[in-house]
Protein backbone atom coordinates (compact mmCIF):
# COMPACT_ATOMS: atom_id res chain seq x y z
CA UNK A 1 0.00 0.00 0.00
CA UNK A 2 2.70 2.43 1.02
CA UNK A 3 4.78 1.32 -1.92
CA UNK A 4 2.00 2.03 -4.43
CA UNK A 5 1.22 5.47 -3.07
CA UNK A 6 4.88 6.46 -3.08
CA UNK A 7 5.11 5.50 -6.69
CA UNK A 8 2.02 7.51 -7.52
CA UNK A 9 3.36 10.55 -5.71
CA UNK A 10 6.51 10.37 -7.75
CA UNK A 11 4.52 11.58 -10.77
CA UNK A 12 3.53 14.82 -9.06
CA UNK A 13 5.98 17.65 -9.79
CA UNK A 14 8.26 18.24 -6.84
CA UNK A 15 7.45 21.97 -6.53
CA UNK A 16 3.77 21.17 -6.11
CA UNK A 17 4.60 18.51 -3.55
CA UNK A 18 6.61 21.05 -1.63
CA UNK A 19 3.73 23.54 -1.58
CA UNK A 20 1.27 20.88 -0.45
CA UNK A 21 3.62 19.83 2.31
CA UNK A 22 4.10 23.42 3.41
CA UNK A 23 0.37 24.08 3.43
CA UNK A 24 -0.21 20.94 5.46
CA UNK A 25 2.40 22.03 7.96
CA UNK A 26 0.88 25.48 8.38
CA UNK A 27 -2.60 23.99 8.73
CA UNK A 28 -1.42 21.54 11.38
CA UNK A 29 0.23 24.27 13.38
CA UNK A 30 -2.86 26.44 13.23
CA UNK A 31 -5.45 23.81 14.08
CA UNK A 32 -3.60 21.38 16.28
CA UNK A 33 -4.62 21.68 19.88
CA UNK A 34 -2.33 20.81 22.70
CA UNK A 35 -3.43 17.40 23.96
CA UNK A 36 -5.25 17.58 27.32
CA UNK A 37 -2.67 15.55 29.22
CA UNK A 38 0.17 17.60 27.72
CA UNK A 39 -1.65 20.76 28.75
CA UNK A 40 -2.12 19.61 32.36
CA UNK A 41 1.51 18.60 32.53
CA UNK A 42 2.81 21.86 31.08
CA UNK A 43 0.65 24.08 33.29
CA UNK A 44 1.34 22.17 36.51
CA UNK A 45 5.07 21.97 35.86
CA UNK A 46 5.08 25.69 35.18
CA UNK A 47 3.19 26.31 38.43
CA UNK A 48 5.57 24.08 40.39
CA UNK A 49 8.63 25.83 39.03
CA UNK A 50 7.13 29.21 39.92
CA UNK A 51 6.42 28.01 43.48
CA UNK A 52 10.01 26.86 43.79
CA UNK A 53 11.69 29.91 42.25
CA UNK A 54 9.56 33.03 42.73
CA UNK A 55 10.68 34.85 45.92
CA UNK A 56 7.39 36.77 46.21
CA UNK A 57 5.44 33.49 46.13
CA UNK A 58 7.69 32.04 48.79
CA UNK A 59 7.24 35.12 50.94
CA UNK A 60 3.49 34.47 50.78
CA UNK A 61 2.55 37.64 48.86
CA UNK A 62 -1.14 36.72 48.40
CA UNK A 63 -1.92 39.46 45.86
CA UNK A 64 0.98 38.39 43.69
CA UNK A 65 0.06 34.71 44.01
CA UNK A 66 -3.54 35.46 43.04
CA UNK A 67 -2.41 37.43 39.99
CA UNK A 68 -0.24 34.53 38.90
CA UNK A 69 -3.05 32.01 39.27
CA UNK A 70 -5.42 34.33 37.42
CA UNK A 71 -2.95 34.67 34.52
CA UNK A 72 -1.48 31.17 34.33
CA UNK A 73 -4.06 28.71 35.62
CA UNK A 74 -7.55 30.24 35.50
CA UNK A 75 -7.66 30.51 31.67
CA UNK A 76 -7.50 26.72 31.48
CA UNK A 77 -10.75 26.34 33.42
CA UNK A 78 -14.25 26.65 31.99
CA UNK A 79 -15.74 28.74 34.78
CA UNK A 80 -19.18 28.96 33.20
CA UNK A 81 -19.55 25.21 33.03
CA UNK A 82 -18.17 24.75 36.54
CA UNK A 83 -20.66 27.30 37.83
CA UNK A 84 -23.52 25.70 35.88
CA UNK A 85 -22.64 22.28 37.30
CA UNK A 86 -22.32 23.54 40.86
CA UNK A 87 -25.46 25.70 40.87
CA UNK A 88 -27.64 23.28 38.86
CA UNK A 89 -31.25 24.35 38.41
CA UNK A 90 -30.71 27.76 40.00
CA UNK A 91 -28.17 28.57 37.31
CA UNK A 92 -30.53 27.65 34.49
CA UNK A 93 -33.17 29.98 35.89
CA UNK A 94 -30.76 32.88 36.50
CA UNK A 95 -30.52 35.98 34.33
CA UNK A 96 -27.35 36.43 32.22
CA UNK A 97 -26.24 39.13 34.64
CA UNK A 98 -26.71 36.84 37.68
CA UNK A 99 -24.88 34.05 35.86
CA UNK A 100 -21.93 36.31 35.23
CA UNK A 101 -21.75 37.60 38.80
CA UNK A 102 -22.07 34.09 40.19
CA UNK A 103 -19.35 32.76 37.93
CA UNK A 104 -17.04 35.68 38.79
CA UNK A 105 -17.51 35.26 42.54
CA UNK A 106 -17.04 31.51 42.29
CA UNK A 107 -13.84 32.05 40.34
CA UNK A 108 -12.49 34.48 42.98
CA UNK A 109 -13.30 31.99 45.73
CA UNK A 110 -11.46 29.19 43.92
CA UNK A 111 -8.46 31.42 43.25
CA UNK A 112 -8.32 32.54 46.88
CA UNK A 113 -8.55 28.95 48.09
CA UNK A 114 -5.87 27.79 45.73
CA UNK A 115 -3.51 30.64 46.54
CA UNK A 116 -3.99 29.95 50.24
CA UNK A 117 -3.13 26.29 49.77
CA UNK A 118 -0.20 26.90 47.45
CA UNK A 119 2.52 27.01 50.09
CA UNK A 120 1.73 23.37 50.90
CA UNK A 121 2.80 22.26 47.47
CA UNK A 122 6.46 23.19 47.76
CA UNK A 123 8.02 19.77 48.25
CA UNK A 124 5.77 17.88 45.93
CA UNK A 125 6.37 16.13 42.67
CA UNK A 126 3.67 15.17 40.21
CA UNK A 127 3.45 11.99 38.19
CA UNK A 128 1.19 11.79 35.16
CA UNK A 129 -0.74 8.74 34.09
CA UNK A 130 -0.87 8.05 30.35
CA UNK A 131 -4.13 9.33 28.89
CA UNK A 132 -6.57 6.58 28.04
CA UNK A 133 -8.99 8.18 25.62
CA UNK A 134 -10.21 8.04 22.06
CA UNK A 135 -8.29 10.26 19.63
CA UNK A 136 -11.46 12.22 18.79
CA UNK A 137 -12.92 12.30 22.30
CA UNK A 138 -14.27 15.67 23.42
CA UNK A 139 -14.37 14.84 27.14
CA UNK A 140 -11.47 13.21 28.98
CA UNK A 141 -10.16 12.70 32.48
CA UNK A 142 -6.50 13.48 32.98
CA UNK A 143 -5.13 11.59 35.98
CA UNK A 144 -2.19 12.81 37.99
CA UNK A 145 -0.69 11.84 41.29
CA UNK A 146 0.90 14.24 43.73
CA UNK A 147 3.74 12.79 45.77
CA UNK A 148 4.93 14.38 48.97
CA UNK A 149 7.89 13.04 50.92
CA UNK A 150 6.80 10.69 53.72
CA UNK A 151 3.12 10.87 52.87
CA UNK A 152 0.61 8.79 50.95
CA UNK A 153 0.36 10.05 47.34
CA UNK A 154 -2.79 11.97 46.48
CA UNK A 155 -4.63 11.38 43.21
CA UNK A 156 -5.71 14.57 41.44
CA UNK A 157 -7.89 14.10 38.38
CA UNK A 158 -9.03 16.78 35.95
CA UNK A 159 -12.29 16.43 34.01
CA UNK A 160 -11.63 18.19 30.72
CA UNK A 161 -13.57 19.17 27.64
CA UNK A 162 -12.53 20.22 24.17
CA UNK A 163 -13.42 23.83 23.34
CA UNK A 164 -12.58 26.01 20.31
CA UNK A 165 -9.76 27.60 22.33
CA UNK A 166 -8.15 24.45 23.61
CA UNK A 167 -8.92 21.89 26.28
CA UNK A 168 -10.38 23.26 29.48
CA UNK A 169 -10.95 21.70 32.89
CA UNK A 170 -14.44 21.82 34.40
CA UNK A 171 -13.84 19.78 37.55
CA UNK A 172 -10.96 18.78 39.78
CA UNK A 173 -11.21 15.58 41.80
CA UNK A 174 -8.81 15.44 44.73
CA UNK A 175 -8.45 11.98 46.32
CA UNK A 176 -11.93 11.12 45.07
CA UNK A 177 -13.52 14.37 46.22
CA UNK A 178 -14.99 16.35 43.33
CA UNK A 179 -14.82 20.09 43.81
CA UNK A 180 -17.96 20.69 41.78
CA UNK A 181 -19.94 18.07 43.71
CA UNK A 182 -18.84 19.61 47.02
CA UNK A 183 -19.95 23.04 45.92
CA UNK A 184 -23.25 21.72 44.60
CA UNK A 185 -24.35 21.01 48.19
CA UNK A 186 -23.08 24.37 49.35
CA UNK A 187 -24.81 26.25 46.55
CA UNK A 188 -28.09 24.35 46.92
CA UNK A 189 -28.17 25.23 50.60
CA UNK A 190 -27.53 28.94 49.96
CA UNK A 191 -30.10 29.08 47.14
CA UNK A 192 -32.69 27.46 49.39
CA UNK A 193 -32.06 30.10 52.04
CA UNK A 194 -31.81 33.23 49.93
CA UNK A 195 -32.26 32.43 46.24
CA UNK A 196 -29.57 32.95 43.64
CA UNK A 197 -28.90 36.50 44.89
CA UNK A 198 -28.41 35.10 48.37
CA UNK A 199 -25.82 32.71 46.98
CA UNK A 200 -24.01 35.49 45.13
CA UNK A 201 -24.04 37.59 48.30
CA UNK A 202 -22.68 34.74 50.41
CA UNK A 203 -19.84 34.18 47.94
CA UNK A 204 -19.05 37.90 47.78
CA UNK A 205 -18.97 38.12 51.58
CA UNK A 206 -16.64 35.12 51.74
CA UNK A 207 -14.37 36.71 49.14
CA UNK A 208 -14.12 40.05 50.90
CA UNK A 209 -13.39 38.44 54.29
CA UNK A 210 -9.75 38.20 55.32
CA UNK A 211 -8.36 34.72 54.62
CA UNK A 212 -8.09 32.41 57.64
CA UNK A 213 -4.66 32.55 59.28
CA UNK A 214 -2.35 30.14 57.52
CA UNK A 215 -0.09 27.99 59.59
Amino acid at each position, binding site marked *: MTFVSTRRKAHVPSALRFIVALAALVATAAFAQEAPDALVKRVSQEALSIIKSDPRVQAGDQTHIRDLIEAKIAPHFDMDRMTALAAGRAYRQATPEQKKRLSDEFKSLLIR*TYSNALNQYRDQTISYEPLRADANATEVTVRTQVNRPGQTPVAIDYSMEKTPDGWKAYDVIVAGVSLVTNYRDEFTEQVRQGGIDGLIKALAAKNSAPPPPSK
Partner: protein
Amino acid sequence: MSGDRSIRKHAIARLVAALVASALVAGCAMGPTREDPFEPMNRVSYKVHQVIDGNVVKPIAEAYVTYTPEIVRTAVHNFFGNIDDMFSFVNDMLQGKGEKAGNDLGRVITNTGFGVLGLIDIAGSGNIPKGDEDFGQTFGFWGIPQGPYLFIPVFGPTTVRDGSGTVLRAFTTPVNLINDVAARNIIWGVGLVDLRASALQTENVLNQAALDPYTFIRRSYLQRREYLVHDGKPPPRKEEEE
Protein backbone atom coordinates in the same frame (compact mmCIF):
# COMPACT_ATOMS: atom_id res chain seq x y z
CA MET B 1 -17.97 -11.40 38.03
CA SER B 2 -20.13 -14.42 37.15
CA GLY B 3 -23.81 -14.31 37.98
CA ASP B 4 -23.38 -17.09 40.49
CA ARG B 5 -20.76 -15.18 42.40
CA SER B 6 -22.74 -11.99 42.47
CA ILE B 7 -25.83 -13.84 43.72
CA ARG B 8 -23.80 -15.41 46.49
CA LYS B 9 -22.20 -12.09 47.29
CA HIS B 10 -25.62 -10.50 47.39
CA ALA B 11 -26.97 -13.11 49.76
CA ILE B 12 -24.05 -12.80 52.15
CA ALA B 13 -24.26 -9.05 51.93
CA ARG B 14 -27.92 -9.14 52.88
CA LEU B 15 -27.20 -11.40 55.81
CA VAL B 16 -24.37 -9.23 57.10
CA ALA B 17 -26.37 -6.09 56.44
CA ALA B 18 -29.31 -7.44 58.38
CA LEU B 19 -27.08 -8.41 61.30
CA VAL B 20 -25.26 -5.12 61.47
CA ALA B 21 -28.42 -3.13 60.95
CA SER B 22 -30.32 -4.90 63.69
CA ALA B 23 -27.40 -4.82 66.11
CA LEU B 24 -26.30 -1.24 65.64
CA VAL B 25 -29.04 0.87 64.23
CA ALA B 26 -32.05 -0.57 65.95
CA GLY B 27 -34.50 2.25 66.01
CA CYS B 28 -32.70 4.41 63.46
CA ALA B 29 -34.46 5.08 60.19
CA MET B 30 -32.26 4.21 57.22
CA GLY B 31 -33.36 6.40 54.36
CA PRO B 32 -31.40 5.80 51.18
CA THR B 33 -32.50 9.14 49.74
CA ARG B 34 -31.54 11.19 52.76
CA GLU B 35 -27.91 10.83 53.68
CA ASP B 36 -28.11 12.97 56.77
CA PRO B 37 -31.46 12.35 58.52
CA PHE B 38 -30.00 13.51 61.84
CA GLU B 39 -28.70 16.79 60.46
CA PRO B 40 -30.04 18.99 63.31
CA MET B 41 -28.42 16.73 65.92
CA ASN B 42 -25.24 16.45 63.86
CA ARG B 43 -24.96 20.20 63.55
CA VAL B 44 -25.15 20.50 67.33
CA SER B 45 -22.44 17.83 67.57
CA TYR B 46 -20.39 19.79 65.07
CA LYS B 47 -20.65 22.94 67.22
CA VAL B 48 -19.69 20.97 70.34
CA HIS B 49 -16.82 19.49 68.36
CA GLN B 50 -15.57 22.92 67.33
CA VAL B 51 -15.49 24.08 70.95
CA ILE B 52 -13.67 20.99 72.24
CA ASP B 53 -11.40 20.82 69.24
CA GLY B 54 -10.57 24.51 69.12
CA ASN B 55 -9.80 24.71 72.85
CA VAL B 56 -8.21 21.35 73.57
CA VAL B 57 -7.49 18.94 70.74
CA LYS B 58 -6.25 21.34 68.08
CA PRO B 59 -3.87 23.23 70.43
CA ILE B 60 -2.40 19.90 71.53
CA ALA B 61 -1.94 18.82 67.91
CA GLU B 62 -0.35 22.18 67.06
CA ALA B 63 1.97 22.02 70.03
CA TYR B 64 2.89 18.50 69.01
CA VAL B 65 3.82 19.70 65.52
CA THR B 66 5.72 22.71 66.90
CA TYR B 67 7.71 21.04 69.66
CA THR B 68 8.32 17.54 68.32
CA PRO B 69 11.15 16.99 65.81
CA GLU B 70 9.89 15.92 62.41
CA ILE B 71 11.81 12.66 62.58
CA VAL B 72 9.90 11.69 65.74
CA ARG B 73 6.56 12.64 64.21
CA THR B 74 7.34 10.60 61.12
CA ALA B 75 8.23 7.59 63.28
CA VAL B 76 5.00 7.98 65.27
CA HIS B 77 3.00 8.31 62.06
CA ASN B 78 4.68 5.20 60.65
CA PHE B 79 4.00 3.22 63.83
CA PHE B 80 0.27 3.86 63.56
CA GLY B 81 0.44 3.43 59.79
CA ASN B 82 1.80 -0.05 60.41
CA ILE B 83 -1.27 -0.87 62.52
CA ASP B 84 -3.42 0.53 59.69
CA ASP B 85 -1.63 -1.86 57.33
CA MET B 86 -2.42 -4.84 59.58
CA PHE B 87 -6.11 -3.93 59.48
CA SER B 88 -5.86 -3.25 55.78
CA PHE B 89 -4.49 -6.77 55.28
CA VAL B 90 -7.40 -8.29 57.24
CA ASN B 91 -9.87 -6.30 55.16
CA ASP B 92 -8.12 -7.16 51.88
CA MET B 93 -8.67 -10.79 52.82
CA LEU B 94 -12.30 -10.20 53.77
CA GLN B 95 -12.84 -8.72 50.31
CA GLY B 96 -10.77 -11.29 48.45
CA LYS B 97 -8.32 -8.69 47.15
CA GLY B 98 -5.25 -10.85 46.72
CA GLU B 99 -2.77 -8.35 45.36
CA LYS B 100 -3.54 -5.73 47.98
CA ALA B 101 -3.38 -8.40 50.70
CA GLY B 102 0.07 -9.42 49.48
CA ASN B 103 1.25 -5.83 49.51
CA ASP B 104 -0.12 -5.07 52.95
CA LEU B 105 1.20 -8.28 54.48
CA GLY B 106 4.57 -7.55 52.90
CA ARG B 107 4.49 -4.05 54.33
CA VAL B 108 3.62 -5.25 57.84
CA ILE B 109 6.29 -7.97 57.86
CA THR B 110 8.96 -5.66 56.44
CA ASN B 111 8.15 -2.69 58.64
CA THR B 112 7.56 -4.65 61.85
CA GLY B 113 10.62 -6.83 61.39
CA PHE B 114 13.16 -4.48 59.85
CA GLY B 115 11.60 -1.11 60.59
CA VAL B 116 11.72 -1.35 64.40
CA LEU B 117 8.06 -2.28 65.06
CA GLY B 118 6.88 -0.05 62.27
CA LEU B 119 8.73 3.13 63.26
CA ILE B 120 10.45 3.20 59.88
CA ASP B 121 8.45 2.72 56.70
CA ILE B 122 11.00 0.62 54.84
CA ALA B 123 8.35 -0.92 52.63
CA GLY B 124 7.20 2.54 51.57
CA SER B 125 10.71 3.45 50.48
CA GLY B 126 10.66 0.23 48.47
CA ASN B 127 7.42 1.45 46.90
CA ILE B 128 5.03 -1.18 48.20
CA PRO B 129 1.70 0.70 48.06
CA LYS B 130 -0.56 0.83 51.11
CA GLY B 131 -3.89 -0.93 50.66
CA ASP B 132 -5.77 1.62 52.79
CA GLU B 133 -8.66 -0.77 53.43
CA ASP B 134 -10.76 -0.77 56.60
CA PHE B 135 -13.86 -2.46 58.01
CA GLY B 136 -16.16 0.27 56.72
CA GLN B 137 -14.93 -0.40 53.19
CA THR B 138 -15.36 -4.14 53.66
CA PHE B 139 -18.98 -3.58 54.72
CA GLY B 140 -19.41 -1.38 51.64
CA PHE B 141 -17.81 -3.97 49.40
CA TRP B 142 -20.39 -6.52 50.53
CA GLY B 143 -23.20 -4.17 49.68
CA ILE B 144 -24.02 -2.60 53.02
CA PRO B 145 -25.14 1.02 52.49
CA GLN B 146 -23.57 3.90 54.37
CA GLY B 147 -26.58 4.45 56.57
CA PRO B 148 -27.13 7.82 58.22
CA TYR B 149 -24.28 10.29 58.33
CA LEU B 150 -23.01 11.10 61.80
CA PHE B 151 -20.78 13.82 63.15
CA ILE B 152 -19.16 12.75 66.41
CA PRO B 153 -17.41 15.38 68.53
CA VAL B 154 -13.61 14.89 68.56
CA PHE B 155 -13.76 11.96 66.13
CA GLY B 156 -15.34 13.86 63.28
CA PRO B 157 -17.42 12.71 60.31
CA THR B 158 -18.55 9.11 59.95
CA THR B 159 -21.62 7.08 59.09
CA VAL B 160 -23.39 4.23 60.84
CA ARG B 161 -21.53 1.79 58.57
CA ASP B 162 -18.07 3.33 58.83
CA GLY B 163 -18.51 4.11 62.51
CA SER B 164 -19.33 0.45 63.16
CA GLY B 165 -16.08 -0.40 61.43
CA THR B 166 -14.20 2.05 63.64
CA VAL B 167 -15.76 0.57 66.79
CA LEU B 168 -14.89 -2.96 65.62
CA ARG B 169 -11.32 -1.84 65.04
CA ALA B 170 -11.07 -0.15 68.43
CA PHE B 171 -11.97 -3.47 70.08
CA THR B 172 -9.55 -5.53 68.02
CA THR B 173 -6.49 -3.29 67.70
CA PRO B 174 -3.20 -4.85 68.84
CA VAL B 175 -2.71 -1.80 71.08
CA ASN B 176 -5.24 -3.47 73.41
CA LEU B 177 -2.78 -6.34 73.92
CA ILE B 178 -0.61 -4.04 76.02
CA ASN B 179 -1.34 -4.96 79.63
CA ASP B 180 -0.08 -1.78 81.22
CA VAL B 181 -3.11 0.51 81.33
CA ALA B 182 -1.13 3.76 81.45
CA ALA B 183 1.07 2.78 78.50
CA ARG B 184 -1.96 1.64 76.52
CA ASN B 185 -3.78 4.91 77.15
CA ILE B 186 -0.72 6.93 76.17
CA ILE B 187 -0.47 5.06 72.88
CA TRP B 188 -4.18 5.63 72.22
CA GLY B 189 -3.74 9.32 72.98
CA VAL B 190 -0.66 9.75 70.80
CA GLY B 191 -2.49 7.97 67.98
CA LEU B 192 -5.32 10.48 68.15
CA VAL B 193 -2.92 13.43 68.27
CA ASP B 194 -1.09 12.05 65.23
CA LEU B 195 -4.41 11.76 63.40
CA ARG B 196 -5.43 15.29 64.32
CA ALA B 197 -2.02 16.73 63.40
CA SER B 198 -2.24 15.27 59.91
CA ALA B 199 -5.52 17.14 59.36
CA LEU B 200 -4.19 20.60 60.34
CA GLN B 201 -3.29 21.70 56.82
CA THR B 202 -6.44 20.37 55.21
CA GLU B 203 -8.50 22.28 57.72
CA ASN B 204 -6.90 25.54 56.67
CA VAL B 205 -7.93 24.96 53.06
CA LEU B 206 -11.40 23.91 54.18
CA ASN B 207 -11.97 27.16 56.06
CA GLN B 208 -11.01 29.17 53.00
CA ALA B 209 -13.02 27.08 50.55
CA ALA B 210 -16.28 26.41 52.37
CA LEU B 211 -19.34 28.62 52.65
CA ASP B 212 -20.63 26.19 55.27
CA PRO B 213 -17.88 23.90 56.61
CA TYR B 214 -20.46 21.41 57.93
CA THR B 215 -21.85 20.68 54.44
CA PHE B 216 -18.41 20.80 52.88
CA ILE B 217 -17.02 18.22 55.31
CA ARG B 218 -20.08 16.00 54.87
CA ARG B 219 -19.89 15.94 51.09
CA SER B 220 -16.09 15.49 51.12
CA TYR B 221 -16.36 12.62 53.56
CA LEU B 222 -19.11 10.80 51.69
CA GLN B 223 -17.37 11.27 48.34
CA ARG B 224 -14.07 10.07 49.73
CA ARG B 225 -15.59 6.94 51.27
CA GLU B 226 -17.47 6.12 48.06
CA TYR B 227 -14.19 6.46 46.18
CA LEU B 228 -12.34 4.19 48.63
CA VAL B 229 -15.04 1.49 48.62
CA HIS B 230 -14.74 1.34 44.82
CA ASP B 231 -10.93 1.38 44.90
CA GLY B 232 -10.70 4.73 43.17
CA LYS B 233 -13.31 3.98 40.50
CA PRO B 234 -16.68 5.07 41.87
CA PRO B 235 -19.67 4.66 39.54
CA PRO B 236 -20.27 7.89 37.61
CA ARG B 237 -22.72 10.28 39.17
CA LYS B 238 -25.46 11.82 37.10
CA GLU B 239 -24.49 15.43 36.48
CA GLU B 240 -27.13 18.09 36.51
CA GLU B 241 -26.26 20.63 33.89
CA GLU B 242 -27.70 23.27 31.62
